């Protein structure tokens, strides 16, 4: 396959602060000369903020150039675990219209019936896909939904008079870090189960962890290696038997949507990421939505309010024993509307087809990638097909050439290929990488991706320094490796950077 020629745009774009010229303006407002005097003297700002002074066209062109200096899915991005998707532009148009963007969250429900109707309808659609009894959209990301579950777990056991006793949350080493992290933030002890040779923890390990201290299980399935734990229903049964709750982190829903439902496996709650599986744009990291769904047993504890329906009228209600809030208002509702639009465009058949496509394409990739020298997959001994992702290792390549997965990632960017996902910490295979093809990328895209990886591996064996010193055709080269953790070196603001350069520090 011919590799596409590529070079990232280079604009040598200065920082906005460096563009500043005293006296330039980007916006005018009507002048109210007496306005400042209305601020009590003791609190009046006398030294204006040291912000850049730029004109409107210069500022626009500055950010357009910065957008060009961001690859931003114009290349091929198979960032595993994040399920890169097409974000239908219709949904962007609808969500940016005044009918959505112009709504204040405290408007009277009579004035937002359209909004509430869509939120309600989407809740129903997610119920169909999961079997759960109620969804809420307040959590502003997947991790926030995990935190929601930790708070609900706290409230649930407290209501049963077992708050002090049930203080452990069980997860696995292959769960997303947000599960143990939010559990710990909510005050739980975290029990992390290790994997056995089958790629998931054993029932025995789970049984050994369960006790009358168990508050909940927080687990994903399949994991990021594309391995499905076939004992998961038994896990949930055992967790319930021990008195705990079971939460399904459905971050990796794309490969199994329409194939399984969290409720059917016994789970009390689950979470869907609308910015991953449901076609909502990621925005480089939000605004996002962790849609949290649960059974009637947990519904009284949900963060409120939730949308209820009476005929054609929609209202807001706060559950009786609500945990309160994990974030203000009802959540990123403009993103919920986009997810509604995506899901309606797909329909049940489209959803099933997308699940098929993502798993077909991953296994097609796997077959071809394993033919590339220096590439292996996690748990190579396991037979059978993986789901929508496979965790690979460049350990052999690293041993033989000294070229790391990060080096390969940087070099692939020279060919218009955006970063692959490596692995969450801790790495359980050496030099990991985790592409996820999903359903939006064409076979030609995937073939190009594989061809670039193969070409870079070939370079690594021929000329390892070429790869180790990459990128060479990007906006900028490789970072110097300066220790940014050193407070004398790292700087998150221009004012600090300037003070340091001027020798004031």
């Amino acid at each position: 396959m011919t590799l596409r020629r590529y070079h990232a745009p280079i604009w040598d774009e200065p920082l906005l602060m460096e563009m500043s010229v005293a006296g330039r303006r980007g916006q005018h407002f009507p002048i109210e000369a007496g306005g400042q005097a209305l601020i009590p003297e003791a609190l009046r700002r006398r030294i204006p903020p040291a912000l850049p002074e730029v004109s409107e066209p210069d500022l626009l062109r500055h950010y357009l150039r910065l957008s060009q200096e961001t690859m931003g899915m114009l290349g091929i991005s198979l960032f595993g675990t994040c399920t890169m998707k097409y974000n239908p532009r219709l949904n962007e148009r609808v969500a940016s219209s005044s009918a959505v963007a112009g709504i204040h969250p405290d408007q009277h429900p009579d004035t937002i019936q359209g909004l509430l109707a869509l939120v309600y309808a989407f809740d129903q659609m997610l119920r169909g896909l999961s079997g759960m009894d109620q969804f809420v959209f307040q959590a502003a990301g997947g991790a926030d939904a995990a935190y929601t579950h930790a708070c609900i777990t706290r409230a649930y056991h407290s209501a049963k008079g077992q708050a002090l006793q049930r203080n452990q949350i069980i997860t696995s080493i292959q769960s997303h870090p947000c599960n143990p992290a939010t559990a710990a933030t909510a005050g739980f002890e975290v029990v992390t189960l290790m994997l056995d040779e089958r790629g998931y923890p054993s029932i025995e390990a789970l049984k050994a962890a369960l006790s009358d201290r168990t508050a909940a299980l927080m687990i994903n399935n399949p994991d990021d290696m594309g391995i499905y734990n076939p004992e998961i229903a038994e896990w949930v049964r055992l967790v319930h038997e021990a008195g705990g709750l079971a939460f399904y982190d459905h971050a990796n829903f794309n490969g199994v949507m329409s194939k399984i439902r969290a409720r059917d496996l016994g789970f009390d709650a689950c979470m869907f990421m609308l910015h991953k599986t449901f076609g909502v744009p990621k925005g480089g990291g939000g605004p996002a939505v962790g849609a949290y769904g649960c059974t009637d047993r947990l519904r009284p504890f949900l963060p409120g309010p939730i949308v209820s329906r009476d005929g054609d009228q929609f209202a807001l209600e706060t559950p009786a024993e609500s945990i309160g809030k994990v974030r203000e208002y009802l959540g990123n509702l403009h993103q919920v509307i986009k997810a509604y639009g995506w899901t309606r465009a797909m329909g049940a058949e489209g959803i099933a087809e997308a699940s098929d496509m993502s798993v077909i394409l991953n296994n097609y990739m796997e077959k071809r990638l394993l033919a590339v020298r220096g590439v292996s997959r996690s748990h190579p001994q396991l037979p059978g097909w993986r789901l929508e992702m496979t965790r690979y290792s460049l350990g052999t390549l690293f041993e033989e050439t000294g070229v790391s997965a990060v080096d390969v990632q940087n070099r692939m960017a020279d060919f218009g290929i955006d970063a692959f996902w490596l692995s969450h910490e801790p790495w359980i295979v050496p030099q990991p990488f985790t592409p996820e093809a999903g359903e939006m990328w064409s076979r030609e895209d995937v073939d190009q991706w594989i061809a670039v990886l193969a070409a870079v591996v070939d370079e690594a064996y021929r000329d390892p320094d070429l790869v180790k010193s990459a990128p060479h055709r990007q906006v900028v080269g490789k970072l110097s490796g300066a220790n940014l953790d050193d407070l004398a070196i790292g700087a998150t603001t221009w004012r600090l950077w300037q003070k340091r350069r001027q020798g004031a520090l």
Partner: protein
Amino acid sequence: MSQPARAHPFMPNSAPALKSALLAELGLDSAEPLFGQIPESHRFRGDLTQPESLSSEVVLSRHMRDILARNRPAADAISFLGGGCWHHYVPAVVDEIVGRSEFTTPVWGTPSSDFGRNQAWFEFTSQIGALVEMDMVGLPVYSWGCAAGHAIRMAVRITDRQRILVPARMCPQRRAVIDNYCGSADPTARIEVTAIACDEQGRLDVSALAKALNETIAAVYFENPSYLGGLELAAAEIAASARSAGAETIVGVDPISLGVVLPPGAYGADIVVGTTQPLGVHMSAGGGLGGFIATRHESHYASEYPTLLNSITETVDGNTAFGLMLFHQSSYGSREYGKDWTGNSTYLWAIANSAYMGLMGPQGFQEIGALIASRAHAAASRLSGIPGLRVSLNGFFKEFVVNFDETGRSVSSINDALRAYDIFGGLDLSQSFPDMGQTALYCVTEVHEDGDIERLVAALTEVLA
């Protein structure tokens, strides 16, 4: 299906022949064997109960438009709602920038391939730093309430104390978020939140605060302007007394005020938090929310940040570039041993905020601050002329309380009546703060013109007649 299958517009490989060709590469004629890891007893074979597919964009577009036509957005009416999400003007240039595909769609790349976005983020943190006068600013968090929650947890870890003081009359939503962040399944880790009495405009009662402050207090949290709009005149005094008790001072701010209001870095704040929504982000029913955390650039603060930190640095060949700082202390780096947690946040809004702050510059922030203060005060003054209304007339920025007790009417009934005039009255506080009677929080910004205030006054006069 009676019609021949057609490829879905979002799925390039879904044309039947293309799908078959991919399956053939795997030696299969159906996708079913690929799901062999899933036991049959786990499989769902029923109806997913989804509504009919609307794969035709023209149909879906009309369908969504028709439903959303039932909304009457505040931005199209005359609205005085604020309190945690505010109607400010969003310059068209900001919409253009934030709508760029390169910023809207991706997730995460390399420092080289994401260079432009990382620079935009650095410009965000730098400009927030300039507004609040702090040297260290993290990448954004979900909201003001979440920022306050994290800041409180930072202060608890820094001081090794577990009690905090907050205003009794603070935003109930932010307070509810803080309460969750302060809760713990471990009773020894719980953070005790004590509410300090406030005046009618939400300012802390300094003598009540002095009584409550002692060596067990981790932090004093207050807002400037307060939830009820009042500017905290005793800000420096509060920060000084917190410091002398060994407590951290956490200040929450509305950054759009900071062209005319003293920055918290100038009166002794240790940790500054606030909202980013007023800085160029549409309300979107609360979807526009974002929050930030800022501190001095000192190790005991830096080492407690839960957010990702985007630092300026250099490439091997001496170009400016950006990289992550102190990543290991995030939940990505250390799972349950990290600082709280991080994840997806409001990173796209950081770009909107950055563009907005750049457009405004020092003069823009001064002009908009003076304009808002002037219009809000003029509105308060006009409303105070209506018989039966008790209105705060000064000491605020853009929000002020209006008490209706003497009218004998509830805020809720008045707001119901105002809606007939296409006016959304101020936020009803009577449920949140029953001791304040029938009180509403009115918000006036640069989007309000004199005519809007006149319409409000005329409508209120009729409603109360």
